[in-house]
């Protein structure tokens, strides 16, 4: 995993938020590395990665952003189950889209969803943790890319 690989995920984030509503722009701040504490928010969708890379890709956001996305999708009613479904689906989409660059051997799991700071996932101890900050409609989310192997 290197700085260049992160661009694949940034492209995926932009594509995802543009798909919700084209005229509502997403701001992606410069990614940073945070190897210790991970900035988990209220809801986190986690995709385990295996094959040519090992680790996880996580999308974490507060309920307000996820509720806003669901409103744009005309989803009703909006409740905790639907929010958990959405955060998992966003993590799935952003991980799966990365295969455009990394190929078919970048294997992704089905999503698991955690709420709150207590995210139960065995992150690779020797991997770099890239954090991509996302701002959409004044709400912040993060995409965490925690992988051990080089994806090329």
């Amino acid at each position, binding site marked *: 995993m290197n700085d260049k690989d992160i661009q694949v995920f940034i492209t995926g984030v932009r594509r995802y938020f543009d798909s919700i509503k084209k005229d509502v722009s997403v701001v992606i701040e410069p990614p940073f590395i945070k190897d210790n504490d991970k900035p988990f928010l209220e809801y986190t969708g986690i995709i385990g990665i295996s094959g040519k890379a090992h680790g996880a890709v996580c999308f974490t956001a507060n309920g307000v952003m996820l509720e806003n996305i669901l409103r744009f999708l005309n989803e009703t009613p909006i409740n905790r189950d639907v929010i958990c479904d959405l955060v998992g689906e966003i993590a799935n989409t952003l*991980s799966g889209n990365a295969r455009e660059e990394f190929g078919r051997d970048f294997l992704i799991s089905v999503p698991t969803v955690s709420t709150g700071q207590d995210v139960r996932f065995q992150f690779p101890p020797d991997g770099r943790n890239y954090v991509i900050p996302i701002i959409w409609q004044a709400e912040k989310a993060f995409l965490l890319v925690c992988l051990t192997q080089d994806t090329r």
Partner: protein
Amino acid sequence: MKLLIVDDSSVVRRAIERDLESGEITEVDQAATGEDAVRLYSAKLHDVVTLDITMPGMDGLTCLDRIVEINPEARVLIISALRDKATAIDAIKRGASGFLCKPINPSELKEAFKLLVED
């Protein structure tokens, strides 16, 4: 026309149903797993199936194989986050009629559905 929507995300299933709402579709079934999809398809032989790939239990490509075994003429549109050409080519070789990548673009979905129905 009978439509079967297969995806483990209920949000995605409902979005697809809303995007494809039209007078042509008289009946819509939804399945969250490949196993449920095969069961529903074998009972009703839907005119069109939209099918996710990454799902718990039976994955979408295995589900596609089962559906094609039941009906070699099945019209199956894959809608997946897996944005690599190898997976798309594999799905088409196994009998899918089309392949769309998530996030879903409603216009592309409607166009792909129209092409499937006209085929």
